């Protein structure tokens, strides 16, 4: 927990921080722990989280920061303790405590911890754009979704959408949670709203199992056709 001992600052020890709910569907994080540093400290001007793993293993799954309708973030990875092997567009880079790795949005990146006790701090932001923090309800909704409590996930996500109405993925995830909760009409409506912002999101919708309950609906068929 963050200890707020003064108004002007907050302090956390990364080793003492409790893991946040997994941010991957169904919570399968293979022993990795995600630390929600941004929310713990109340930072709003850049994105920051951390991942740690007790032994050797995957710290960062291969991904890029280019995604549907979202601002592309550049990322700075800070290696705290231990060591990690990054693969950046196919190139292997060995790092150890004190290494800083800066990665542009379009680069395919992954990282594997070579030994125990590796923590990676990850800072992100979009050049030329103000950082738009996701409300805490978005993380709570994801935790509820991972726990299979889809009603609660929808309730939390609705509150998140109210706060960041233009955030495409937040809206899309609302449709997913609604589809899981059997709220077909709401799910279709929100999926449509997401597609109105960026048609590319439908690429994701075509084979997203979260939307399986909508697949027989003619409105869904028309949308993804």
């Amino acid at each position, binding site marked *: 927990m963050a200890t707020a001992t003064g108004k002007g600052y907050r302090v956390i*020890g990364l080793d003492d921080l409790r893991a946040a709910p997994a941010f991957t569907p169904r919570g399968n994080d293979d022993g990795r722990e995600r630390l929600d540093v941004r929310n713990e400290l109340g930072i709003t001007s850049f994105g920051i989280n951390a991942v740690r793993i007790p032994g050797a293993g995957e710290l960062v799954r291969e991904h890029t920061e280019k995604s549907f309708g979202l601002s592309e973030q550049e990322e700075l990875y800070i290696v705290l303790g231990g060591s990690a092997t990054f693969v950046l567009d196919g190139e292997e880079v060995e790092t150890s405590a004190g290494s*800083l790795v800066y990665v542009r949005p379009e680069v395919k990146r992954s990282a594997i911890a070579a030994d125990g006790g590796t923590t990676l701090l990850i800072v992100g932001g979009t050049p030329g754009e103000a950082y738009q923090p996701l409300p805490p309800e978005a993380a709570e909704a994801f935790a509820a979704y991972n726990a299979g409590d889809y009603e609660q996930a929808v309730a939390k996500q609705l509150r998140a959408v109210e706060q960041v109405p233009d955030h495409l993925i937040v809206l899309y995830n609302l449709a997913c949670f609604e589809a899981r909760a059997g709220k077909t009409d709401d799910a279709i409506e929100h999926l449509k709203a997401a597609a109105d912002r960026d048609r590319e999101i439908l690429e994701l919708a075509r084979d997203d199992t979260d939307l399986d309950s909508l697949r027989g609906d003619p409105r869904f068929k028309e949308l993804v056709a």
Partner: protein
Amino acid sequence: MATATGTGFSVLTLDGTTGDENEGRIRVDVRRELGIQAFGTNAYRSVEGGELIREHDEAGFHIGNNDQEELYVVVEGRATFNVDGEKIDAPSGTAVLVRPESKRSAVAEEPGTTVLAVGSTPGEAYLVLPDEFAAAFEAYNEKDYERSIELYQGILASGFPNEAGIIYNIACNEALLGRTDNAIEHLKTAIEANPRAVELARTDSDLDSIREDERFKGLVS
């Protein structure tokens, strides 16, 4: 030095081999070394221990990126932070977030203590100042005020026409050269762009040559 082995990424290690050393303190301009554009990033390393971050705050009048919140991460060693008079023990792995208006400083308790600072302004895009900015400031430090003005004018023309801090610095250089009318005019423009320029102008010795001018008194009153 940063090793840029690909176009899409760059790597740097804070082991004391990169950066500028001054009185046992190594400062690394991480943002510039790595090419980061979305947030500010610096690192400080103490060779033997001692002063690591000088007391300052992030409120008030700066060039771009006013009122930054700043996150300090202790990457190696152990530091003691002092925030608004309160001491914070910060071993390696500690993260300290400091609000813009708080006075903060840090002392390294061990040789090699390294702190990374990341900052940006909530609700605003991070402003990357062009390389000429450092050159303009250096020219000012070397008392080559003509050159400094020329460089600052170039920055204004290159896409920062309303950056109050740059216009203000032109006024300072002009005041130092005794060009009272020009200095007053630029100071006026700077204050129009950001009224907080007044706070700095009231006590800035660079403007001493225009301090008795009635127009100056009118601007800062």
